[in-house]
């Protein structure tokens, strides 16, 4: 009997606000340990939280982008548990009245599009970071714990999906699409390697095509798209193995061990937590006014799916459309290039080909490169006018990316401009034809391969700066 997986994903996203969720400390990565802290995010006696309006707006924006219902009144709750890097020993989070409920995200899956429902999107504060020192590096055997509270109080958005995903690949595609939406909204940098986006998942398996739900297992601690997919694949396999052998799946929380490539059962003590949620009395309910929602709705940017569809309609193939739609800064650059007169397909080819390759060689990102849409428009104009060959255009792009100036400046400096002056071209052709009367006669008699010979001669005369296509046309015209 075949089994299929039933998967729901919980995604935690650190929002890219200037300050933390409930205090004025800077929200940044990489500062000296315990340098971005204050009485509030350190949980000092008497300190009180004040909610960050930008973080609330960012969360609502994601909800609006994904078709969620935004709550007119939303409440922060205290989630109580003791942990050394949780300064107040409770986390300000949300419980039964989250900022957003419902909504969905369409994911391109094997055999079509999968609409993945969202349960909720809520906002909470991140914890500090513990570093366990000791021989084994394991928590239980640690000899000392170092605490860094810079991350404490960073706004953390949680997106909870319905169990609508059917394979580890789909789950990965969901996470990738969600990340693309978040990047398009500009609400988080969503850098996985810096823990700005982290995943937990619920997974169960059931006989293929079934409608019931098996016993679910919660997997924690997945910090990349790859580990999400690997962990789910391992877990689905493990559960399938258990059921196939006539065994049972135990409802539990398991932790993904990236190094070992397997999930492990957590300590039972950790799972039996009763978080004793109750409404945070230091805060008043969040009331979102209709005018604010209208403003946020109007400010929504084009989403990745819409952008991909638009590029497909412009003639880009699916792969190029995805690359441009999701590459950081590619979409806006292509849009600017098209506005400046570039051909969409040509522009996309440059971006996904030469530009990407050269950025990699230079070790910089598009944001750091001096390339603009106007440059691409200008480059297209030079090619279309026959003043640059396709090969020379790539060289010009490299020059622009290296900061040598506009395409025209680079082409001039690198001596790449083709002869486009018709009279110069005509003169060169006439000179070559006059010097080779016999070949001209044979061509006229039908020996077509001599066109190549004559074009070559013209290229020689012009020092390789003529457009071979136009030379060829001129030779035909003159000899015809």
């Amino acid at each position: 009997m075949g089994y299929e997986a039933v998967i729901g994903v919980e995604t935690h996203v650190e929002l890219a606000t200037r300050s933390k969720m409930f205090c004025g400390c800077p929200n940044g990565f990489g500062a000296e340990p315990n340098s971005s802290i204050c009485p509030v995010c350190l949980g000092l006696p008497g300190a009180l939280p004040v909610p960050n309006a930008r973080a609330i707006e960012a969360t609502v924006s994601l909800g609006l982008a994904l078709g969620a219902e935004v709550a007119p009144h939303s409440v922060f709750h205290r989630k109580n548990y003791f942990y050394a890097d949780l300064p107040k020993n409770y986390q300000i989070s949300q419980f039964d009245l989250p900022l957003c409920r419902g909504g969905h995200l369409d994911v391109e899956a094997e055999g079509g599009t999968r609409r993945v429902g969202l349960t909720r999107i809520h906002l909470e504060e991140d914890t500090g970071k513990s570093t366990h020192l000791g021989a084994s590096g394991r928590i239980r055997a640690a000899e000392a714990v170092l605490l860094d509270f810079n991350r404490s109080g960073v706004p953390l958005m949680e997106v909870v999906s319905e169990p609508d995903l059917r394979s580890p690949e789909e789950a990965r595609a969901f996470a990738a699409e969600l990340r693309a939406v978040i990047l398009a909204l500009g609400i988080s940098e969503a850098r996985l390697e810096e823990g700005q986006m982290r995943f937990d998942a619920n997974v169960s398996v059931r006989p293929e095509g079934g409608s019931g739900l098996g016993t679910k297992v919660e997997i924690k601690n997945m910090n990349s798209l790859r580990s999400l997919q690997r962990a789910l694949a391992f877990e689905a396999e493990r559960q399938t193995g258990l059921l196939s052998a006539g065994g049972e799946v135990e409802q539990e929380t398991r932790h993904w061990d990236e190094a070992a490539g397997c999930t492990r059962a957590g300590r039972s003590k950790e799972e039996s937590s009763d978080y004793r949620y109750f409404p945070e009395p230091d805060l008043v309910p969040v009331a979102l006014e209709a005018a604010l929602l209208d403003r946020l709705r109007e400010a929504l940017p084009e989403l990745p799916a819409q952008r991909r569809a638009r590029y497909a309609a412009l003639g880009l193939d699916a792969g190029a459309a995805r690359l441009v739609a999701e590459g950081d800064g590619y979409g806006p650059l292509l849009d600017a290039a098209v506005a400046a007169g570039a051909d969409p397909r040509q522009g996309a080819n440059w971006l996904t080909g030469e530009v990407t390759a050269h950025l990699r060689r230079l070790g910089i990102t598009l944001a750091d490169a001096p390339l603009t849409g106007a440059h691409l428009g200008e480059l297209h104009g030079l090619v279309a006018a026959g003043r640059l060959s396709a090969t020379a255009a790539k060289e010009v792009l490299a020059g622009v990316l290296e900061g040598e100036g506009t395409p025209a400046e680079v082409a001039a400096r690198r001596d790449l401009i083709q002869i486009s002056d018709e009279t110069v071209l005509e003169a060169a052709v006439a000179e070559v034809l006059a010097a080779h009367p016999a070949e001209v006669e044979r061509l006229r008699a039908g020996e077509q391969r001599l066109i190549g010979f004559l074009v070559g001669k013209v290229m020689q005369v012009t020092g390789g700066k003529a457009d071979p296509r136009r030379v060829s046309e001129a030779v035909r015209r003159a000899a015809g």
Partner: protein
Amino acid sequence: MSGDPADLTIAEAAAALRSGALSAADLLAAVRRRAGATEAQLHAYLTLDVEGAERAAEAADAALSRGEDPGPLAGIPLAIKDNMCTRGIETTSGSRLLAGYRPPYDATVVGRLRAAGAVIVGKTNLDEFAMGSSTENSAYGPTRNPWDPDRVPGGSSGGSAAAVAVGSALGALGSDTGGSIRQPAALCGIVGLKPTYGLVSRYGLVAFASSLDQIGPFARTVEDAATLFEAICGHDPSDATSYRGVPPVVRPTLEAGPEGLRVGVIAELAGEGNEPAVLAAFGRTLEALEVAGAEVREVSLPSIPYALDAYYLIAPAECSANLARFDGVRYGRRLPGDTVEQMMAATRRDGFGPEVTRRILLGTYALSAGYYEAFYGRAQQVRTLVIEDFARAYGRVDVLVCPTSPTTAFAIGERTEDPLAMYLADVCTIPSNLVGGPGISLPVGRDGAGLPIGFQVLAPPLGEAVLLRAARAVEVLAGFAARPALATSEAR
């Protein structure tokens, strides 16, 4: 000038400072002498800020000598309950856990008093984390009542009340979660005001129960209480529950008198359960009000009997989370343990006194899965009923009145073994914390043993103007002028 400056009201002292009859330095010295003479018996203070107070007094004198008007509190010696953060000055909240803890910042109220030129004499004793009604739950030993050192000053702000009563401060700040300003004011024979929830910032107040905590003043007169209230109230962007509007204006109507004032006597709190002497003094005050032109009528608030129960679920629930941060990880006392968890557990077990531990356990239980609806959820429903009851009553009367405390000051040790008897000390004061409206206690008489009796006035939220007008009228009618034995003792 005649008499001891420590016995002046804030208004009198401010006038004397302005006229040049008294310097802030001399006033501080007088208050210090009074503290020196009484502290060994009273133990009102936990910490004295000797240098800071001297600097503030010098600054006030300098401003006055330059002919500036540095405000009504300039040079006035005040005391601060030790659950309000003072930058660089030990703030213990009456707990062993915070022994030696020096906050890196001033509570908003402390900052406002400093900005008004006040001289902060020191930090006063309290029941640990403001949980108690007698100041016997302090980890640093009890405060005693200046009227009779064998008796409690009330609590939890007992240190502030005792200091103001005896003259080791001209005014003080306390915090009131279930009566912790008004009840000690009553037991110490002074004025104690709990403002409307949200009118005074809680930023920097070590939290007990966030939805009930409110900072307010102690003084010897209603006018002085109004002056302190004016100095500390107003929106604070650091407190998300802080009221955003303009605070009530109280001074123009302060002397408007009782005529035409509609006074409702809370039937459920003004009869049985009060000591006869308390009832007698209360009744005399009502008669005087009536004679002076107030309309006095009885008002029933049927939800009141349940208010105490609701309070003892909501307050412990909030405290169980608020006190979770005291774990020895980042500040305060720390006991060793083999693991972080063991360290936290040992620190908390050792650090919290029995009453605080009892309330943390109560609150943790009330919030637990399976019990939340029956306890915390139900308590919130009762709170809503109490709020509605009061709102209905305020449709018919301007203020509500009842005794502040059913008894006068009780003996030290009398109730420490019986938490329920202790909890009843706050039966008259708790409802207004649930409602959020302001309340004030002022002395109106003494019992057979010479102990002061408090009269409580309550008003709807933001009703400070009518509250203080009524209180001032009662103050005039009652003519209470007695001072505690310790304050007047020549044997000092």
